[in-house]
């Protein structure tokens, strides 16, 4: 069982920054995200696009903002449960919570902060009958650890950046990579398309377009897929493989959190105050894009602000008798849980003259 002070659901910018603010208050955080990597919408939807309205950054790429947030929270050593969706919540008699993921990982926490954005990013699944029975048995909709595919025969389907990038990456890891796409045109970065072409020429990737996977076969696990060429003859082909990875993009769904007894309005969690963004269940907060209140704006900046107020309130809830005074980081510095300390340089000039001491 993973134990923490604040369990954050969602590793988007809001959830990541909450780790920093909690760290200043000496509270430990653990983050769950359905995606295999942190960053939420910034990483999933627009990593290479510039953002212009983060104070102090005239322009920053969404991917760089996430990298910077990860660096900023490093000293506070958050734990991560990635590639798993928070599924159920149980409130214990002492007011603490147990949150369990769809893979059965249990987290015991004093506070739950839902920073779930538009919802957990769920893969778009192809329309193939009986798909579910092969899930995690050779069929995967995202790649968590490429090493799982070492020496295996892999079929990837899709026409976007993920399908191209993973085909390139696995060309050196898997024993065979086949990339299947419904169209001849790809929608991805030009250099990725060119790299795939190069690997096709070197026989490291087999490219099959325009074509579609119609079926999966195998006893208990993926053993082959049935492919239909979208040519005049509609020729069928069986491709033997150990893994089938359809990468058709992701769609966010509020999902199981909608059944936790929280007040929901238009797909968002209602917080009846802007004091600390606590929900109708004491001890559960909702911050960032996932919440709604009069005047709500879905902006990164607003998520940061909400995370800060949430942490102050969480601290008071955990330590009702302790008094805490907010300190500026410039004045108080930062004490990481790893023993690191950051503080402003002292600049006292003791004496002016021959023996100047700084």
């Amino acid at each position, binding site marked *: 069982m993973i134990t923490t002070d604040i369990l954050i659901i969602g590793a988007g910018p809001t959830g990541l920054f909450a780790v920093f603010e909690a760290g200043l208050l000496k509270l430990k955080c653990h983050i769950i995200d359905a995606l295999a990597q942190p960053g939420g919408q910034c990483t999933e*939807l*627009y990593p290479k*696009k510039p953002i212009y309205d983060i104070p102090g950054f005239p322009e920053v790429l969404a991917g760089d903002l996430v990298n910077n947030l990860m660096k900023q929270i490093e000293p506070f050593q958050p734990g991560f449960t990635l590639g798993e969706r928070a599924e159920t919540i149980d409130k214990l008699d002492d007011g603490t919570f147990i949150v369990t993921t769809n893979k059965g990982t249990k987290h015991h926490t004093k506070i739950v902060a839902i920073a779930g954005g*538009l919802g957990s990013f769920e893969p*778009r699944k192809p329309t193939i009958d009986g798909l579910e029975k092969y899930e995690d048995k050779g069929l995967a909709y995202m790649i968590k650890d490429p090493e799982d595919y070492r020496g295996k025969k892999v079929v990837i389907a*899709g*026409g*976007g950046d993920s399908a191209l990038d993973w085909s390139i990456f696995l060309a050196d890891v898997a024993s065979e990579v086949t990339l299947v796409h*419904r*169209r001849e*045109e790809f*929608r991805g970065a030009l250099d990725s398309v060119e790299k795939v072409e190069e690997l096709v020429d070197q026989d490291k990737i087999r490219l099959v377009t325009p074509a579609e996977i119609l079926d999966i076969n195998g006893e208990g696990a993926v053993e082959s897929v049935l492919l239909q060429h979208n040519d005049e003859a509609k020729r069928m082909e069986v491709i033997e493989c150990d893994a089938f990875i359809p990468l*058709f*993009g992701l*769609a*966010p769904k509020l999902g199981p959190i909608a059944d936790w007894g929280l007040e929901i309005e238009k*797909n968002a969690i209602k917080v009846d105050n802007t004091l600390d963004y606590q929900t109708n269940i004491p001890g559960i907060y909702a911050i960032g894009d996932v919440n709604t209140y009069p005047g709500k704006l879905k902006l990164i900046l607003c998520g940061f602000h909400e995370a800060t107020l949430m942490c102050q309130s969480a601290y008071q809830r955990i330590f009702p008798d302790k008094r805490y005074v907010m300190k500026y980081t410039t004045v108080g510095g930062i004490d990481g849980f790893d023993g690191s300390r950051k503080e402003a340089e002292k600049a006292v000039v003791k004496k002016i003259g021959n023996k100047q001491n700084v």
Partner: protein
Amino acid sequence: MSDIKITIIDREGQRHEVDAPTDMNMNIMEVCKAYDLPVQAVCGGMAMCATCQCYIISDHDLGERNDDEEAMLWEASFVKDNSRLGCQIPITEDLEGLVIELAPEE
């Protein structure tokens, strides 16, 4: 420039006649959102999510789909010949009287 009238049929079949400004650089997805119609617009208008997919019911000529729009519609569900992505269609005076229907959610 002035407002134009467009009709949006929601997923329950309800018709909404709305005013759409032609001078605010808006597109059909943004007009739907401005009137609180249930368009998620997950990607914020980058032709990357298809949650703004709609069917063009009237016989307005909206021109060819652009490359991004076309590519997204290859991967989306419930796509028909008259499918378009609302976020890729700017509001212009030529769209006066346009009738669209929101595509089902995936």
